[in-house]
């Protein structure tokens, strides 16, 4: 019996509604219609740990690398090790012993950065998640073969498979058997069910209780303004005004973008998913775009790029079409991008 089955047995009862016994009223069976098989297959793309739901296909490490560099590297780094935008996926700290035991030993070490590949017990999860949600700014545009290749490349980066490895629907089970943390998950806890047993219990002592009352941790003075001036984050006329944490002459840089375009126009239009003010994110920085396209003569060009997308101007990562950008926002964004002002 699988560990899940044992876990489920703990809570197995006859499934009857207890709190909300709501009988099916007459006529209700006319609401909702049968879904067609084709409709179900359009949405039911999930892949379970037993690989139920996995579409056929295959991809090798080299194909995966090619797709990776075009679609994934700008966020995750060429080797999946970037910490710039997301936590690292792979850092090359998985050992042969981990793969043999199915439990990553360095997870015990607080000094080791936890990567995705150190944690993930199930190969199906990598496949399912990349297929449903990646790439970041254009989810569900990868083919099944591309996803097989990407998973092969990731496993190769983690030394789980060799350079000439080909991942396919026919060898997922044996590849699962090499997942470094496949035995690293525990279901031995009381937090799955409302009826589960707690692992910790508080004290019921009410008088002269023996507790430590020495302050062992507090925010250092220099960090008091790290979240901005607290005086401006609470009701300033009530019984508890905020502590003034901003130091004169050391005004913290605003976290929001101080520009002549509204933040709503940029984030609401989806721009900030890939672009930031300074420095490359997925796409080029707004600063770089504004420098290159200063001048009203570029307005029509930028307008077209935003609405219809493009590729190859700033690198290999394509800019997806953004046809849903609201007219007012588009006008504001284009005017700002071409304004040439600081």
């Amino acid at each position, binding site marked *: 019996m699988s560990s899940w*089955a044992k876990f*489920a047995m703990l*809570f197995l009862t006859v499934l009857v*509604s207890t709190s*909300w016994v*709501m009988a*099916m009223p007459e006529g*209700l069976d006319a609401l909702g219609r*049968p*879904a067609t098989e084709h409709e179900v297959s359009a949405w*039911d793309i*999930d892949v*379970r*740990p037993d690989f139920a739901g996995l579409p056929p296909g295959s991809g090798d490490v080299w194909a995966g690398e090619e797709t990776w560099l075009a679609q994934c590297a700008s966020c995750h780094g060429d080797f999946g090790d970037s910490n710039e*935008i*997301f936590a690292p996926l792979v850092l090359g700290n998985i050992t042969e012993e981990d793969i043999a035991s199915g439990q990553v030993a360095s*997870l*015990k070490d*607080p000094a080791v950065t936890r990567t995705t590949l150190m944690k993930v017990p*199930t190969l199906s*999860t990598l496949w399912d*998640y990349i297929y*449903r949600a990646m790439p970041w700014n254009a*989810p569900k545009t990868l083919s099944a073969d591309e996803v097989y290749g990407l998973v092969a490349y990731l496993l190769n980066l983690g030394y789980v498979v060799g350079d000439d490895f080909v991942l396919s629907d026919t060898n997922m089970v044996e590849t699962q058997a090499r997942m470094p943390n496949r035995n*690293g998950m525990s279901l031995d*806890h009381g*937090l*799955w*069910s*409302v009826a*589960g047993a*707690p692992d*910790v219990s*508080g*004290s019921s*002592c009410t*008088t*002269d*209780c023996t507790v*430590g*009352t*020495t*302050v*062992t*941790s507090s925010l250092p003075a220099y960090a008091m303004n*790290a*979240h901005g001036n*607290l005086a401006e984050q609470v*009701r*300033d*006329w*009530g*019984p*508890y005004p*905020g502590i003034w944490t901003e130091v004169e002459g050391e005004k913290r840089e605003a*976290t929001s973008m101080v520009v002549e375009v509204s933040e709503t126009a940029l984030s609401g239009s*989806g721009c*900030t*998913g890939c672009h930031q003010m300074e420095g490359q*994110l997925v796409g080029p920085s707004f600063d770089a775009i504004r420098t290159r396209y200063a001048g009203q003569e570029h307005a029509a060009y930028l307008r077209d790029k935003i609405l219809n997308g493009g590729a190859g101007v700033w690198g290999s990562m394509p800019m997806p079409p953004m046809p849903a950008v609201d007219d007012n926002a588009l006008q504001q964004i284009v005017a700002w991008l071409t304004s040439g002002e600081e």
Partner: protein
Amino acid sequence: MALDAEQGQLQPAPESFLAKDLVEDISRDGIDPARRKLLQNALAAAAAAAAAAASMVAPSLMADDDPDIVNLPSWTRSLGKPVVANPYGQPSPYEANIVRRQSPGLTRTDQSSVSFTPLQNLFGMITPSGLHFERHHQGWVDIDPRRHRLMINGLVETPLVFTMEELLRMPSVSRIHFLECGANTGLEWGNVAVPTVQYSHGMLSASEFTGVPVSLLLDRAGFDRQRATVLLAEGADGSSMTRTINLENALDDAMVAYGQNGEMLRPENGYPLRLVVPGVQGVSWVKWLRRLEVGDAPWATKDEVAHYVDLMPDGTHRQYTSIQEAKSVITAPSGGQKLLKQGYYDITGLAWSGRGTVEKVEVSVDGGRNWRPARLEKPLLPKALTRFHFDWVWQGDEVLLQSRVTDRTGYTQPSRAQLIEARGTRSIYHNNAIQTWRISGDGEVHNVQLG
């Protein structure tokens, strides 16, 4: 139009003083002597009000007078704004500080990020919808409800598709429940990391949700009671977020919700449809819900293996941790605030339990040595927030404030020491330890941990 010198605001023209039916009469029949008299009276009244405003001099203030009483403020001597000046009402401009905020540096993108609810300044047991915390995994979306569908498939007799129109026709229920992110207070496992309750506990909100019980929908689809143990919930957004739901618990009280606090869900909270799984961490309340699949084994989705798994000291992760155990926090006074004077204060806060109803809350002003019961506001609802109060007189001394909840199962909220003894400090999720606020002699309130 006239300018109010004090406020610099435009005053409405005298036409606004005319009764609507008088204006209609005049435009229909023209002005006769009777109507001319009414018109003159109205205009005279308007002119007098304007003159009074313009010529108002400060009356002589007596020594004990409060000038805000004796010198009538501008709003007491001017015409107010018309109806539907804000077709959708907005908070007073004096409440502009009370907004959702991000914790700087917590995330590198604003699409996979968090904004926190300003608990320090809220009252009662309901979170205003516009202040409900946000946690998105791949940004939020505006969904056209006419084009949204809910599909139910898996271990069912007939896979079904519902339109929003059909869901709103179905029998509905309205229930008040809390919604807490599993990572709430996650920054505080190792040490104090944030200054205020907004950042330490602000991934917590509560709303009245309205929707269709999951049990009714599954009955309609004819689900396999012999084999089914779990549900998969899936979103319609780009991330198509998926989570495995405990079916037995879901049949008790989960719903497919479209309503929040009397109106439709806000887009950031899943418009037009989200799953409500009372007592369970927020990540399972899948937003923009498009599909429920009935199954007999869990899916091990991304947010069940790489995130929302609790790392234990032995290097294993607890998987499918879902229930939010009993927890409480004092919201005022709380970190980053300041007591200006000594005397009476109403210490207040929130308590909740994912396993049911709050039984009692106790408050300590000496760091947990001595505890006295707090007063609980009614009604006490299961898996909802309970507001508590504690009468207290501050005498200018240093104080260590704590609250501790016990729920109806008999479970008591643990101290930080008790919690980390069992789980270490690296699990990120499900930190329900007792919170300490230190009030220093100058009245400043600081987030501290004790040992």
